[in-house]
C-alpha cells in the first residue's frame, strides 16, 4: 500500500524500458528489437551498440515492421517492435490483427510516445485510439504502465510471456508510484490508496494525477480509493466489482478517447455485474487541439483538481 507519491522527481518511462530491454538482451540472445527508423525516439541506440545484429531497423515502413516482427517470432526470436504508438497501431493495425493476434505470434508491440505525448505536433501524432483498437482484438493483452518501476516490471513480464502484447509507453515524465520490488501480474490492478466513498481508476500518465486527486479529496473529507489498472485487456473484473460494491461510485481517467478505452472497459464490467454511478474522464471524442500533453490533460478535466471536482459531482449521483 502506498499512500502518496514517494518522490516528486519525474521519470521518462522510455529509460526504464530500454535499460530493462538491454539487461534482458544480455541474458537472452533471442531478444531482438525492431523499429521504423525510431532508434532515437525509442531510445534504442544503447541496444544497437550492445547488440548490433539484433536491432532490425526496417526504415519508415510500419506494416513491414510488424510483419517482420511476426516472422522473427516464427524463427524463434522474441521481437520487441518499437515505434511511435500512433503509427504502430494505426498504420499496422491489420498486421497486428492478422500476423500477431490471429496468428498468435510472440510479438511484443511497444507503443512509444502514446496518448498525447506529441501534443503540440497535432492530432496525427496523438495515439488516443489505441486502447480501443487493440482491445477489440483477441490474444493481445493491452497494458499501460504508470511509472518507471511498473514499466520495467512489464517489460520483464513481456519477455517471459508466451504471446503477443501491446505495451503503451509515454515520454511524459511521471513520478514513482509503485514499490521498487513490484512485479507485474497480467490483469491485476493495484490498490494504491484505500478509500470508501468512491474509486478512481487510472493507468499510464493518469495514475499519479489520480493519486493527487485523492489527496485533494481527502482534504474535503472524501475518502477515495485509487486503483492503478495498467491492464486494459484482460480487465481486472474482480477489482472493479469490489470497487463498485464497496465504494458505490467509480471515476475513470485515461489519456485516450472516451470511445472504447479504459473507461469503456470498466463500464462494461460495472454494467454487467454491479451497476453504480460512473464518470469517465478522457478526450471527449474530438481531435485534441495544440498543446503539451499535461496541458491537454488539464484542459479535459484531468488535473488533480479537475478529477476531484468531477468526483464531487459523481458523489451527488450516488444517492
Amino acid at each position: 500500500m502506498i499512500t502518496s507519491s514517494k518522490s516528486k522527481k519525474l521519470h521518462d518511462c522510455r529509460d526504464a524500458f530500454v535499460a530493462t530491454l538491454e539487461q534482458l538482451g544480455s541474458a537472452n540472445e533471442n531478444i531482438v528489437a525492431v523499429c521504423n527508423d525510431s532508434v532515437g525516439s525509442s531510445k534504442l541506440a544503447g541496444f544497437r551498440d550492445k547488440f548490433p545484429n539484433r536491432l532490425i531497423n526496417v526504415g519508415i515502413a510500419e506494416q513491414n515492421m510488424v510483419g517482420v516482427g511476426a516472422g522473427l517470432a516464427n524463427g524463434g526470436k522474441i521481437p520487441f517492435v518499437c515505434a511511435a504508438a500512433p503509427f504502430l497501431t494505426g498504420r499496422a493495425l491489420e498486421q497486428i490483427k492478422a500476423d500477431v493476434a490471429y496468428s498468435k505470434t510472440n510479438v511484443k508491440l511497444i507503443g512509444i510516445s502514446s496518448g498525447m505525448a506529441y501534443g503540440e505536433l497535432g492530432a496525427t501524432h496523438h495515439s488516443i485510439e489505441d486502447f480501443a483498437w487493440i482491445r477489440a482484438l483477441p490474444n493481445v493483452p493491452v497494458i499501460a504502465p504508470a511509472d518507471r518501476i511498473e514499466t520495467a516490471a512489464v517489460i520483464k513480464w513481456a519477455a517471459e510471456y508466451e504471446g503477443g502484447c501491446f505495451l503503451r509507453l509515454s515520454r511524459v515524465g511521471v513520478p514513482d508510484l509503485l514499490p521498487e520490488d513490484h512485479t507485474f501480474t497480467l490483469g491485476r490492478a493495484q490498490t494504491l490508496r484505500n478509500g470508501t466513498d468512491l474509486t478512481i481508476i487510472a493507468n499510464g500518465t493518469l495514475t499519479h494525477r489520480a493519486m493527487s486527486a485523492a489527496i485533494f479529496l481527502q482534504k474535503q473529507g472524501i475518502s477515495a480509493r485509487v486503483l492503478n489498472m495498467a491492464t486494459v485487456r484482460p480487465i481486472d473484473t474482480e477489482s472493479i466489482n469490489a470497487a463498485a460494491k464497496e465504494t458505490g461510485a467509480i471515476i475513470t481517467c485515461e489519456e485516450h478517447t472516451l470511445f472504447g478505452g479504459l473507461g469503456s472497459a470498466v463500464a462494461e464490467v460495472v454494467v454487467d455485474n454491479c451497476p453504480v454511478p460512473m464518470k469517465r474522464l478522457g478526450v471527449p471524442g474530438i481531435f485534441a487541439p495544440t498543446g503539451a500533453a499535461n496541458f491537454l490533460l488539464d484542459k479535459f478535466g484531468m488535473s488533480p483538481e479537475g478529477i476531484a471536482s468531477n468526483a464531487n459531482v459523481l458523489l451527488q449521483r450516488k444517492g
Partner: protein
Amino acid sequence: MSTENLREIAARVRQRDLQAVFEAGAGHIGGELSVTDILTALYFNIMSIDPSDPLAPNRDRLVLSKGHSALALYIVLSEKGFIPKDEIATFLKPLSRLNGHPDRTKVPGVETNTGPLGHGLPISVGMAKAAKINHAGWRTFVITGDGEMQEGSNWEAIMSAAQFKLDNLTLIIDHNRLQQGAHLADTNNLAPLPPKLKAFGWDVVEIDGHNMDQICAELDAARVVEGKPKCIVAHTTKGQGVSFMANNVAWHHKVPNEKEFQQAMAELKQAAI
C-alpha cells in the same frame, strides 16, 4: 523425386481441388490451379520439412501469401502427411479447421495466417532475418499473387530484404495476369515485374510456372546469388488444366455446376495420362 513423379502429384492435387470446390460450393479454383505445380515442387522436391515435427526449428518455411488459394495448400499438406487426406472433405464446412484462408494455430504445416493480401512477404523477411541472425541454413519461400503485388506493404518488404541481403529468401510470384475483377493490365499493370524487382536489388529469373523442370531448377539452392534475395516470376495460367477456366477472369472464385465439373475433371484426368 523425379519431375515425372512431381507431375503425377500435381495432377492428383488439381483433381482433388476441383472436387473439393465443387462439393464445398466455394473456393478460388483459378488461382489454385495456377499455383499447384509450384506448391508441389516446394513440398515434394525442395523444402526440408517433417510432417511428424511440423515446428522443427530448422525446417524450411513456406508462406502462402495468396491465402485464398488455401485449398491447394491443404491438399498438398495432406499429400505430404501433415493432415489426413480425408479431412479435405471438410473444407469450408462448419467448424472445420480448413478455412477459406489458412490458420497456423489449427493446421500443422501452415506457418502464418494469411488472407489479407500483402502480409506474407514482410513476415517472410522476418523469418529469413531470424535465420541470418542465428547463422542457420534453413530457407524461406513465399508465394504471392501478381495482383497482390499492388499492395504497398510488399514493396516495403522488398526494400528491406535487399537491405538485409537475404539470400535465404525466395519470392515466387504466381504471375497469371488476372486478378479478382479483371486483367492486371486493365487494373494496375505491374508487368513487367522483373525490372522492378531488379531495381530494388533482387536477383530475378522468369520461368514457366507449369514446367516442373524449370520450377525445380530455379528453386534449387545452388542457383541462389550470394547476398541477394531471389524472385522467381512464374508465368502461369489461371485455371491451368481446364480449357474453359484457363485465362478466364470469371473463374477467380466461380464454382462449377455438375456439367462443368464433369468436363473439367475429364480434362484434368486426360492431361494426367
